[in-house]
Protein backbone atom coordinates (compact mmCIF):
# COMPACT_ATOMS: atom_id res chain seq x y z
CA UNK A 1 0.00 0.00 0.00
CA UNK A 2 2.03 2.95 1.26
CA UNK A 3 5.10 0.93 0.29
CA UNK A 4 4.75 2.45 -3.14
CA UNK A 5 4.33 5.92 -1.67
CA UNK A 6 7.71 5.64 0.06
CA UNK A 7 9.28 4.17 -3.04
CA UNK A 8 8.08 6.93 -5.37
CA UNK A 9 9.00 9.59 -2.85
CA UNK A 10 12.53 8.31 -2.24
CA UNK A 11 13.05 7.75 -5.96
CA UNK A 12 12.01 11.27 -6.86
CA UNK A 13 13.99 12.91 -4.08
CA UNK A 14 17.12 10.92 -4.93
CA UNK A 15 16.66 11.87 -8.57
CA UNK A 16 16.37 15.54 -7.61
CA UNK A 17 19.63 15.37 -5.71
CA UNK A 18 21.35 13.73 -8.66
CA UNK A 19 20.25 16.73 -10.68
CA UNK A 20 20.50 19.60 -8.17
CA UNK A 21 19.25 22.00 -10.83
CA UNK A 22 15.77 20.63 -10.15
CA UNK A 23 15.98 21.92 -6.58
CA UNK A 24 17.85 25.11 -7.34
CA UNK A 25 15.90 26.30 -10.40
CA UNK A 26 12.74 27.36 -8.55
CA UNK A 27 14.84 29.16 -5.93
CA UNK A 28 16.88 30.98 -8.54
CA UNK A 29 13.65 31.89 -10.31
CA UNK A 30 12.19 33.36 -7.12
CA UNK A 31 15.45 35.18 -6.49
CA UNK A 32 15.43 36.78 -9.93
CA UNK A 33 11.78 37.79 -9.64
CA UNK A 34 12.46 39.32 -6.23
CA UNK A 35 15.28 41.29 -7.84
CA UNK A 36 12.88 42.50 -10.57
CA UNK A 37 10.35 43.87 -8.08
CA UNK A 38 12.28 46.88 -6.76
CA UNK A 39 13.48 47.57 -10.29
CA UNK A 40 9.89 47.73 -11.50
CA UNK A 41 8.16 49.22 -8.46
CA UNK A 42 10.94 51.45 -7.17
CA UNK A 43 13.15 50.93 -4.15
CA UNK A 44 10.95 52.70 -1.56
CA UNK A 45 10.78 50.42 1.45
CA UNK A 46 7.19 51.37 2.26
CA UNK A 47 5.85 50.54 -1.19
CA UNK A 48 7.74 47.25 -1.39
CA UNK A 49 6.79 46.31 2.15
CA UNK A 50 3.13 46.97 1.49
CA UNK A 51 3.08 44.82 -1.61
CA UNK A 52 5.47 42.17 -0.32
CA UNK A 53 2.85 39.60 0.87
CA UNK A 54 1.18 39.52 -2.53
CA UNK A 55 4.46 39.61 -4.40
CA UNK A 56 5.89 36.72 -2.41
CA UNK A 57 2.78 34.64 -2.94
CA UNK A 58 2.51 35.32 -6.67
CA UNK A 59 6.17 34.43 -7.05
CA UNK A 60 5.72 31.20 -5.09
CA UNK A 61 2.73 30.31 -7.25
CA UNK A 62 4.64 30.87 -10.48
CA UNK A 63 7.66 28.97 -9.18
CA UNK A 64 5.45 26.00 -8.37
CA UNK A 65 3.85 26.22 -11.80
CA UNK A 66 7.21 26.24 -13.58
CA UNK A 67 8.74 23.42 -11.59
CA UNK A 68 5.79 21.07 -11.83
CA UNK A 69 5.78 20.92 -15.60
CA UNK A 70 8.66 18.45 -15.74
CA UNK A 71 7.45 16.32 -12.82
CA UNK A 72 6.19 13.45 -14.98
CA UNK A 73 8.12 14.24 -18.15
CA UNK A 74 11.08 11.92 -17.54
CA UNK A 75 9.01 9.08 -16.12
CA UNK A 76 6.62 9.31 -19.05
CA UNK A 77 9.36 9.36 -21.67
CA UNK A 78 11.44 6.52 -20.26
CA UNK A 79 8.53 4.19 -19.56
CA UNK A 80 8.58 4.33 -15.75
CA UNK A 81 4.91 5.27 -15.65
CA UNK A 82 4.04 2.27 -17.82
CA UNK A 83 5.91 0.08 -15.38
CA UNK A 84 4.09 1.64 -12.46
CA UNK A 85 0.63 1.12 -13.96
CA UNK A 86 1.25 -2.48 -15.04
CA UNK A 87 2.81 -3.44 -11.71
CA UNK A 88 -0.50 -3.56 -9.89
CA UNK A 89 0.66 -0.99 -7.35
CA UNK A 90 -1.95 1.30 -5.86
CA UNK A 91 -1.89 4.26 -8.21
CA UNK A 92 -3.55 6.38 -5.52
CA UNK A 93 -0.57 6.09 -3.20
CA UNK A 94 1.91 6.37 -6.04
CA UNK A 95 0.23 9.64 -7.04
CA UNK A 96 0.41 10.84 -3.47
CA UNK A 97 4.12 10.00 -3.59
CA UNK A 98 4.60 12.17 -6.67
CA UNK A 99 2.64 14.98 -5.04
CA UNK A 100 4.71 14.87 -1.87
CA UNK A 101 7.92 14.57 -3.85
CA UNK A 102 7.15 17.80 -5.68
CA UNK A 103 6.42 19.46 -2.38
CA UNK A 104 9.70 18.21 -0.89
CA UNK A 105 11.78 19.22 -3.88
CA UNK A 106 10.15 22.51 -4.85
CA UNK A 107 8.04 23.52 -1.84
CA UNK A 108 10.17 23.00 1.25
CA UNK A 109 13.33 24.76 -0.03
CA UNK A 110 11.16 27.71 -1.00
CA UNK A 111 9.56 27.84 2.45
CA UNK A 112 13.00 27.77 4.06
CA UNK A 113 14.34 30.57 1.87
CA UNK A 114 11.17 32.67 1.89
CA UNK A 115 12.27 34.61 4.97
CA UNK A 116 15.35 35.84 3.17
CA UNK A 117 13.44 36.81 0.05
CA UNK A 118 10.70 38.51 2.06
CA UNK A 119 13.19 40.66 3.94
CA UNK A 120 14.77 41.63 0.62
CA UNK A 121 11.32 42.96 -0.27
CA UNK A 122 11.36 44.78 3.09
CA UNK A 123 8.47 42.85 4.53
CA UNK A 124 7.86 43.86 8.17
CA UNK A 125 9.34 41.24 10.49
CA UNK A 126 6.00 40.30 12.02
CA UNK A 127 4.94 39.03 8.60
CA UNK A 128 7.77 36.58 8.04
CA UNK A 129 6.79 33.70 10.32
CA UNK A 130 3.16 33.86 9.09
CA UNK A 131 4.46 33.88 5.52
CA UNK A 132 6.37 30.68 6.14
CA UNK A 133 3.40 29.09 7.89
CA UNK A 134 1.03 30.01 5.06
CA UNK A 135 3.53 28.77 2.47
CA UNK A 136 3.79 25.50 4.37
CA UNK A 137 0.09 24.76 3.85
CA UNK A 138 -0.29 26.64 0.59
CA UNK A 139 2.53 25.03 -1.35
CA UNK A 140 1.04 21.65 -0.50
CA UNK A 141 -2.17 22.69 -2.26
CA UNK A 142 -0.14 24.13 -5.14
CA UNK A 143 1.73 20.84 -5.45
CA UNK A 144 -1.56 18.93 -5.45
CA UNK A 145 -3.04 20.99 -8.29
CA UNK A 146 0.30 21.10 -10.06
CA UNK A 147 0.77 17.34 -9.96
CA UNK A 148 -2.74 16.92 -11.32
CA UNK A 149 -2.12 19.39 -14.12
CA UNK A 150 1.21 17.79 -14.98
CA UNK A 151 -0.29 14.32 -15.10
CA UNK A 152 -3.13 15.43 -17.36
CA UNK A 153 -0.87 17.27 -19.83
CA UNK A 154 2.25 15.07 -19.85
CA UNK A 155 1.26 13.25 -23.03
CA UNK A 156 0.46 16.44 -24.92
CA UNK A 157 3.00 17.98 -27.22
CA UNK A 158 2.32 21.55 -26.18
CA UNK A 159 1.46 21.18 -22.54
CA UNK A 160 3.30 24.18 -21.11
CA UNK A 161 0.96 27.06 -21.86
CA UNK A 162 -2.07 24.87 -21.32
CA UNK A 163 -0.80 23.94 -17.87
CA UNK A 164 -0.89 27.54 -16.67
CA UNK A 165 -4.40 28.02 -18.06
CA UNK A 166 -5.59 24.91 -16.23
CA UNK A 167 -3.85 25.59 -12.93
CA UNK A 168 -3.98 29.32 -12.25
CA UNK A 169 -7.79 29.60 -11.92
CA UNK A 170 -7.83 26.63 -9.56
CA UNK A 171 -5.09 28.18 -7.44
CA UNK A 172 -6.90 31.48 -6.85
CA UNK A 173 -8.05 30.60 -3.30
CA UNK A 174 -4.53 29.69 -2.20
CA UNK A 175 -3.20 33.02 -3.39
CA UNK A 176 -5.99 34.96 -1.70
CA UNK A 177 -5.74 33.12 1.60
CA UNK A 178 -1.95 33.02 1.64
CA UNK A 179 -1.49 36.70 0.96
CA UNK A 180 -4.38 37.41 3.35
CA UNK A 181 -2.68 35.62 6.23
CA UNK A 182 0.48 37.70 5.84
CA UNK A 183 -1.47 40.93 5.37
CA UNK A 184 -3.43 40.36 8.53
CA UNK A 185 -0.37 39.38 10.51
CA UNK A 186 1.37 42.60 9.48
CA UNK A 187 -1.76 44.52 10.45
CA UNK A 188 -1.67 42.89 13.88
CA UNK A 189 -4.79 40.83 13.41
CA UNK A 190 -5.20 37.17 14.47
CA UNK A 191 -4.42 34.62 11.79
CA UNK A 192 -5.05 31.26 13.48
CA UNK A 193 -8.46 30.82 11.85
CA UNK A 194 -7.18 31.52 8.34
CA UNK A 195 -4.18 29.28 8.80
CA UNK A 196 -6.39 26.44 9.93
CA UNK A 197 -8.59 26.93 6.86
CA UNK A 198 -5.48 26.71 4.70
CA UNK A 199 -4.28 23.62 6.53
CA UNK A 200 -7.71 22.07 6.04
CA UNK A 201 -7.56 22.78 2.32
CA UNK A 202 -4.10 21.25 2.19
CA UNK A 203 -5.29 18.05 3.85
CA UNK A 204 -8.31 17.92 1.55
CA UNK A 205 -6.08 18.36 -1.48
CA UNK A 206 -3.65 15.74 -0.24
CA UNK A 207 -6.46 13.22 0.20
CA UNK A 208 -8.53 13.94 -2.92
CA UNK A 209 -6.05 15.02 -5.59
CA UNK A 210 -4.39 11.59 -5.89
CA UNK A 211 -7.72 10.14 -7.09
CA UNK A 212 -7.75 12.56 -10.01
CA UNK A 213 -4.01 12.23 -10.59
CA UNK A 214 -4.24 8.44 -10.79
CA UNK A 215 -7.03 8.66 -13.35
CA UNK A 216 -5.06 11.23 -15.35
CA UNK A 217 -1.94 9.06 -15.41
CA UNK A 218 -3.97 6.23 -16.90
CA UNK A 219 -5.40 8.54 -19.53
CA UNK A 220 -2.00 10.01 -20.41
CA UNK A 221 -0.50 6.55 -20.89
CA UNK A 222 -3.17 5.66 -23.39
CA UNK A 223 -2.59 8.65 -25.65
Amino acid at each position, binding site marked *: MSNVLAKVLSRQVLLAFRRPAAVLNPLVFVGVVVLMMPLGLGPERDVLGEFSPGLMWITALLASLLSVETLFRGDYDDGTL*EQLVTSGHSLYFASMGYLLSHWCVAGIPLILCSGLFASMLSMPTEGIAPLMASLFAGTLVLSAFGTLGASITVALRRGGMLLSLLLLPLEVPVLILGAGVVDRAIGGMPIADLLSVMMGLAMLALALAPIAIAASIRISLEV
Partner: protein
Amino acid sequence: MSNLPLIRCYEASIHRGDRCLIADLDWSVNAGELWQVTGDNGTGKTSLLRVLAGLAPNGLVGQCERDGVALYLGHRNGVKADFSPRENLSLNLGSHARFSSKEMDRALEIVGLGHYLDEPAYRLSAGQQRRIGLARLFLPSPRLWILDEPLTAIDVSGVSLIEACVNDQIQRGGAVIFTSHQPLASGTLQRLHLSAGRGVVQRV
Protein backbone atom coordinates in the same frame (compact mmCIF):
# COMPACT_ATOMS: atom_id res chain seq x y z
CA MET B 1 -1.81 -23.74 -9.79
CA SER B 2 -5.01 -22.94 -11.61
CA ASN B 3 -5.70 -24.22 -15.10
CA LEU B 4 -7.40 -21.02 -16.17
CA PRO B 5 -5.87 -19.41 -19.26
CA LEU B 6 -3.60 -16.51 -18.36
CA ILE B 7 -5.06 -14.46 -21.20
CA ARG B 8 -8.41 -15.03 -22.76
CA CYS B 9 -9.66 -12.83 -25.62
CA TYR B 10 -13.13 -13.38 -26.94
CA GLU B 11 -14.38 -11.35 -29.89
CA ALA B 12 -11.95 -8.66 -28.87
CA SER B 13 -11.28 -5.67 -31.11
CA ILE B 14 -8.25 -3.51 -30.57
CA HIS B 15 -8.58 0.17 -31.41
CA ARG B 16 -6.11 2.99 -31.47
CA GLY B 17 -7.93 6.30 -31.45
CA ASP B 18 -10.76 5.96 -33.96
CA ARG B 19 -9.00 3.27 -35.97
CA CYS B 20 -9.77 -0.40 -35.53
CA LEU B 21 -6.47 -2.29 -35.78
CA ILE B 22 -7.55 -5.83 -35.01
CA ALA B 23 -11.12 -7.10 -35.24
CA ASP B 24 -12.75 -10.09 -33.55
CA LEU B 25 -9.72 -11.67 -31.95
CA ASP B 26 -10.37 -15.05 -30.33
CA TRP B 27 -7.24 -16.12 -28.57
CA SER B 28 -6.07 -17.61 -25.34
CA VAL B 29 -2.69 -18.01 -23.72
CA ASN B 30 -2.21 -20.88 -21.30
CA ALA B 31 0.45 -21.65 -18.76
CA GLY B 32 3.55 -23.10 -20.39
CA GLU B 33 3.03 -21.38 -23.73
CA LEU B 34 5.38 -19.08 -25.62
CA TRP B 35 3.76 -16.74 -28.13
CA GLN B 36 5.36 -14.52 -30.70
CA VAL B 37 3.14 -11.77 -32.09
CA THR B 38 4.20 -10.95 -35.64
CA GLY B 39 3.00 -8.60 -38.34
CA ASP B 40 4.14 -5.63 -40.38
CA ASN B 41 4.68 -2.21 -38.89
CA GLY B 42 1.41 -0.59 -37.92
CA THR B 43 -0.64 -3.78 -37.71
CA GLY B 44 -1.16 -3.30 -33.99
CA LYS B 45 1.42 -5.48 -32.26
CA THR B 46 2.29 -2.91 -29.64
CA SER B 47 -1.34 -1.83 -29.25
CA LEU B 48 -2.35 -5.43 -28.62
CA LEU B 49 0.37 -5.89 -26.02
CA ARG B 50 -0.56 -2.64 -24.30
CA VAL B 51 -4.18 -3.72 -24.08
CA LEU B 52 -3.11 -7.09 -22.68
CA ALA B 53 -0.95 -5.38 -20.09
CA GLY B 54 -3.85 -3.15 -19.06
CA LEU B 55 -2.32 0.09 -20.33
CA ALA B 56 -5.02 0.89 -22.86
CA PRO B 57 -8.42 -0.12 -21.46
CA ASN B 58 -10.22 2.25 -23.84
CA GLY B 59 -8.61 0.61 -26.85
CA LEU B 60 -10.48 -2.63 -26.21
CA VAL B 61 -13.96 -3.49 -27.39
CA GLY B 62 -15.14 -6.95 -26.47
CA GLN B 63 -13.70 -9.26 -23.88
CA CYS B 64 -10.13 -9.74 -22.88
CA GLU B 65 -9.34 -11.13 -19.47
CA ARG B 66 -6.03 -11.46 -17.78
CA ASP B 67 -5.44 -13.71 -14.80
CA GLY B 68 -3.35 -11.74 -12.34
CA VAL B 69 -0.62 -9.19 -12.82
CA ALA B 70 1.77 -9.36 -15.76
CA LEU B 71 5.36 -8.29 -16.09
CA TYR B 72 5.39 -5.80 -18.94
CA LEU B 73 8.53 -4.53 -20.62
CA GLY B 74 7.86 -2.02 -23.38
CA HIS B 75 10.00 -0.19 -25.90
CA ARG B 76 10.98 2.07 -23.05
CA ASN B 77 11.62 0.03 -19.98
CA GLY B 78 11.85 2.59 -17.24
CA VAL B 79 15.60 2.76 -16.84
CA LYS B 80 16.75 6.05 -15.33
CA ALA B 81 20.04 7.31 -16.72
CA ASP B 82 20.82 9.12 -13.45
CA PHE B 83 20.60 5.92 -11.40
CA SER B 84 23.10 3.11 -11.19
CA PRO B 85 21.96 -0.38 -12.26
CA ARG B 86 21.55 -1.29 -8.59
CA GLU B 87 19.36 1.73 -7.86
CA ASN B 88 17.40 1.13 -11.02
CA LEU B 89 16.39 -2.26 -9.71
CA SER B 90 15.86 -1.38 -6.06
CA LEU B 91 13.78 1.72 -6.86
CA ASN B 92 11.97 0.04 -9.73
CA LEU B 93 8.29 0.90 -9.75
CA GLY B 94 7.37 -2.03 -11.96
CA SER B 95 7.17 -4.63 -9.29
CA HIS B 96 5.23 -5.23 -6.13
CA ALA B 97 7.89 -7.41 -4.60
CA ARG B 98 10.86 -6.20 -2.62
CA PHE B 99 13.99 -7.87 -3.91
CA SER B 100 16.92 -8.65 -1.66
CA SER B 101 20.18 -7.01 -2.67
CA LYS B 102 21.60 -10.48 -3.25
CA GLU B 103 18.88 -11.26 -5.79
CA MET B 104 19.44 -7.98 -7.56
CA ASP B 105 23.22 -8.30 -7.75
CA ARG B 106 22.85 -11.80 -9.11
CA ALA B 107 20.39 -10.66 -11.79
CA LEU B 108 22.71 -7.84 -12.84
CA GLU B 109 25.64 -10.23 -12.99
CA ILE B 110 23.69 -12.59 -15.24
CA VAL B 111 22.94 -9.83 -17.72
CA GLY B 112 26.61 -8.92 -17.75
CA LEU B 113 26.60 -5.78 -15.64
CA GLY B 114 28.50 -7.24 -12.70
CA HIS B 115 31.30 -4.73 -13.05
CA TYR B 116 29.03 -1.71 -13.33
CA LEU B 117 26.76 -2.18 -10.33
CA ASP B 118 27.24 1.35 -9.03
CA GLU B 119 28.11 3.13 -12.25
CA PRO B 120 25.53 5.76 -13.29
CA ALA B 121 23.59 4.33 -16.21
CA TYR B 122 24.29 7.31 -18.46
CA ARG B 123 27.92 6.14 -18.64
CA LEU B 124 26.78 2.78 -20.04
CA SER B 125 26.00 1.99 -23.67
CA ALA B 126 22.46 1.82 -25.08
CA GLY B 127 22.64 -1.97 -25.11
CA GLN B 128 23.82 -2.09 -21.52
CA GLN B 129 21.00 0.24 -20.48
CA ARG B 130 18.52 -2.11 -22.10
CA ARG B 131 20.11 -4.95 -20.18
CA ILE B 132 19.32 -3.17 -16.92
CA GLY B 133 15.68 -3.34 -17.90
CA LEU B 134 15.98 -6.98 -18.88
CA ALA B 135 17.53 -7.85 -15.51
CA ARG B 136 13.92 -7.78 -14.28
CA LEU B 137 13.48 -11.13 -16.03
CA PHE B 138 16.00 -12.71 -13.68
CA LEU B 139 14.21 -11.59 -10.53
CA PRO B 140 11.16 -13.23 -8.98
CA SER B 141 8.29 -12.25 -11.28
CA PRO B 142 4.64 -12.91 -12.11
CA ARG B 143 3.62 -15.89 -14.25
CA LEU B 144 2.81 -13.89 -17.35
CA TRP B 145 5.43 -11.90 -19.22
CA ILE B 146 4.53 -9.43 -21.94
CA LEU B 147 7.67 -8.30 -23.73
CA ASP B 148 7.55 -5.71 -26.50
CA GLU B 149 10.65 -6.01 -28.70
CA PRO B 150 12.92 -7.42 -25.96
CA LEU B 151 15.73 -8.06 -28.47
CA THR B 152 16.20 -4.48 -29.65
CA ALA B 153 19.81 -3.29 -29.22
CA ILE B 154 20.84 -6.64 -27.72
CA ASP B 155 23.89 -8.52 -29.03
CA VAL B 156 24.11 -12.23 -29.87
CA SER B 157 25.12 -13.35 -26.39
CA GLY B 158 22.29 -11.29 -24.97
CA VAL B 159 19.77 -12.94 -27.28
CA SER B 160 20.78 -16.42 -26.14
CA LEU B 161 20.57 -15.21 -22.53
CA ILE B 162 17.01 -14.07 -23.09
CA GLU B 163 16.16 -17.31 -24.86
CA ALA B 164 17.41 -19.27 -21.87
CA CYS B 165 15.41 -17.29 -19.33
CA VAL B 166 12.25 -17.33 -21.45
CA ASN B 167 12.56 -21.12 -21.68
CA ASP B 168 13.04 -21.26 -17.90
CA GLN B 169 9.88 -19.26 -17.41
CA ILE B 170 7.95 -21.61 -19.69
CA GLN B 171 9.30 -24.66 -17.81
CA ARG B 172 8.22 -23.11 -14.51
CA GLY B 173 4.66 -23.03 -15.84
CA GLY B 174 4.63 -19.37 -16.81
CA ALA B 175 3.71 -17.91 -20.17
CA VAL B 176 5.47 -15.39 -22.39
CA ILE B 177 4.09 -13.17 -25.12
CA PHE B 178 6.60 -11.16 -27.10
CA THR B 179 6.96 -9.23 -30.31
CA SER B 180 10.10 -9.39 -32.36
CA HIS B 181 11.19 -9.57 -35.95
CA GLN B 182 13.38 -12.53 -35.14
CA PRO B 183 12.16 -15.78 -33.58
CA LEU B 184 13.35 -17.12 -30.25
CA ALA B 185 14.68 -20.67 -30.31
CA SER B 186 12.24 -22.69 -28.29
CA GLY B 187 10.46 -25.97 -28.84
CA THR B 188 7.05 -24.60 -27.99
CA LEU B 189 6.94 -21.34 -29.95
CA GLN B 190 3.52 -20.41 -31.30
CA ARG B 191 2.71 -17.44 -33.43
CA LEU B 192 -0.10 -14.93 -33.64
CA HIS B 193 0.20 -13.21 -36.99
CA LEU B 194 -1.50 -9.86 -37.47
CA SER B 195 -2.41 -8.72 -40.94
CA ALA B 196 -5.26 -6.89 -42.62
CA GLY B 197 -6.98 -6.17 -39.33
CA ARG B 198 -7.13 -9.80 -38.18
CA GLY B 199 -5.10 -11.96 -35.87
CA VAL B 200 -4.40 -15.44 -37.20
CA VAL B 201 -2.95 -18.16 -35.01
CA GLN B 202 -0.11 -20.03 -36.73
CA ARG B 203 1.49 -23.19 -35.37
CA VAL B 204 5.22 -23.25 -35.95
